[in-house]
């Protein structure tokens, strides 16, 4: 196998790939050189104010059949009502997630309200429950992208990857002030290249397919419904801390 590797690389090298490199100026590390010689351009972003960012995000994600609900501090109550109306029996959430305390505290206790189920086991211990007995999953999210109407998730040990994927309904709380104009802007602002997580996701609407006659059908393998709770924190502040991931400068450019 090492032989194959060497042969492939040799074939590629013998092809005279030298482009802009000046003879005699070979850098110490070839990989550093290939990165610095990579084409760059100014960050592609738009000067949209907070209202326009929210508006564009909302229109974008609603166009692909996500539901967006403007919420305040009683968002757990609103979420419970939305799920109850759908006949959901339960909602799985990560008890160590950044919004778990607020979720538990604000969750109504009336009869018929979906049950909160903590999702705190390794998948090997809860695969069956997650696949067979879960109606909805709840996660926080890192950011929103206005241009494409996308949610940005970096799943964590507290809110693992399958929690936003396996249950038929995925519920997300997005802070309105975490919406940026483009993916490029977000990557650059948060320095993604230096700190990529195991899994980074853009989610734009519920699962869908157009494989039959180019006709959209929803809920193929992932969630059939995506409920976005969009929270606009008032200027006075409500005391609720931004998500734990809000650790980068958000003051740049805008």
């Amino acid at each position, binding site marked *: *196998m090492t032989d*194959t590797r060497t*042969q*492939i690389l040799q*074939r*590629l*090298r*013998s*092809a*005279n*790939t030298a*482009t802009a490199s000046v003879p005699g100026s070979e850098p110490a590390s*070839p*990989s550093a050189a*290939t*990165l610095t010689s*990579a*084409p*760059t351009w100014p960050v592609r972003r738009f000067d949209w104010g907070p209202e326009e960012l929210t508006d564009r995000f909302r229109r*974008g994600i609603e166009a*692909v059949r996500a539901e967006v609900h403007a919420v305040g501090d009683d968002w757990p109550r609103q979420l419970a009502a939305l799920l109850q109306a759908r006949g959901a029996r339960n909602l799985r959430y990560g008890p160590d997630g950044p919004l778990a305390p607020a979720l538990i505290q604000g969750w109504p206790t009336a009869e018929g309200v979906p049950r909160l189920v903590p999702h705190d086991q*390794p*998948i090997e211990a809860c695969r*069956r429950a997650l*696949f*067979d007995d879960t109606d909805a999953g709840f996660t926080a999210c890192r950011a929103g992208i206005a*241009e*494409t*109407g*996308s949610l940005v998730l970096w799943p964590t*040990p507290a809110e693992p*990857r*399958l929690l936003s*994927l*396996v249950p038929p309904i995925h519920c997300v709380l997005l802070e309105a002030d975490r919406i940026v104009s483009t*993916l*490029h802007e977000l990557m*650059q602002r948060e320095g*993604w*290249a230096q700190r*990529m997580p*195991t*899994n980074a*996701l853009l*989610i*734009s609407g519920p*699962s*869908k*397919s*157009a*494989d*039959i*006659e*180019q*006709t959209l*059908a929803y*809920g*193929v*393998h*992932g969630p059939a419904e995506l409920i976005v709770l969009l929270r606009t924190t008032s200027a006075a502040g409500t005391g609720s801390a931004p998500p734990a991931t809000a650790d980068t400068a958000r003051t740049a450019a805008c």
Partner: protein
Amino acid sequence: MASAFRTRAGLALSRERVRGNIRRAMDGLVAKRRAAFPDDAELAQLRDQGQAIRDHALANLPALLEQLEQRCRVNGMQVHWAADAAQANAIILDLLRGHGAKAVIKGKSMVSEEIGVNAYLERHGIEPIETDLGELILQLGNEHPSHIITPAVHKDRAEIAALFNRHFPDEPCSDDIDQLTALARRVMRARFQGATVGMSGVNFAVAETGTLCLVENEGNGRLSTTAPDMHIAVTGIEKVVARLDALAPLLTLLTRSATGQPVTTYVNMISGPRKPDERDGPREVHLVLLDNGRSRIHADPELRATLRCIRCGACMNHCPVYTRIGGHGYGTVYPGPIGAILEPQLQGLQVQGELAQASSLCGACAEVCPVRIPIPQLLNRLRHEHAEGPTASQSPSQSASPASSQSVPIQAVPGGHRPGLQGRVWRAWALLHASPARYRWMRRTIGGMGGLLDGPFGGLLGGLFGPWTRSRTPPRLARRGLQDLARQEGFADD
């Protein structure tokens, strides 16, 4: 005697239902792409970036592959190199056997079609399970994709309903698209839950961070790469890009060109296996880097542009040949204009050289290509090589490239040859056009035949044009040509 390709194309043309299905789908995709790029200036800028990113990656391919490998290893993935399909399949089988897997769930991947991994695994007692709705339909029907993005585009709902009914007789029968989709969800759900190994392709592999980027709409790609204990990603060596921020323009180019979507439902960026404190995700992630002829294509400075491709499928959506004969008309894994330049290079001109003829050279493919692959130019180059044998340094496009100034003639594409009759016809054509006297003689001779076409033998002569005149009015040849008329008006020969 008709060649295999011509026979296939003829057969494809006679399938009215398939042609209708494909035509409708392609018209829809063309309209969606057009609506997705309302701003010409923005599109031009994005294409510049896309081309620059891909050109840079190909110009630095060996270094970037080494860096990708190193970053992936640091991230905890395992990297394998495969010279050809056989090696890639053997690597995959080893991994599956090592894991004790009886089955593998698959996300949609054209590279996996290229290496024929499904048939290989079946021969070795492992069940490959396609999970993408389109791929599932094809697997049930024992067919191959007819399009690289929307693989079952040639089938309509009635055919799919009949197919599902045959394979899932216990499920309710319906040709309603929502119900067919729901059925696919139900039958696949258990497979996702029980799977121990998942396989996927890769849309972009980022050298800087050791990240595999996958786009999809259904969620089966995320499930295949997240739910099992082991994830095997297979990709061509050309899919690498240097920097993470290259994903921003490439993603938007890819999804808008392919389906007119601003972004796919899911963009899945994987940078390693599950970490000790994480509660799900595969414990092992393997990346198989496949050459399979790509390093040979890479060696030719002109043909290298083929490897810029990001597999959006826009060239086939806009191709007058593809929209008529469909993917199966080509008989290759990669159909359409990109297939017509890629397959002859991957498989050799002797095997697939004729595919370079499967084009009217209208140029629509090059106009929509998000990374500006000059497909018509490359088709001409391959036609030339097919007829004349390998191009040496006299190729004009090669001498225009700075990289080839000291390069020795390379046989870029194996198997070039001069087909007997075609070669003779073109030699005769060249002879007649090389001298004014011979040209005048030819013109007068043909002009004289114009009268015959109108006369009693017209039908007989018209038959010589064969299929062309079956649906078209035969050409009427003027008795006096443009040159004669020009001379009459006082123009000199030069």
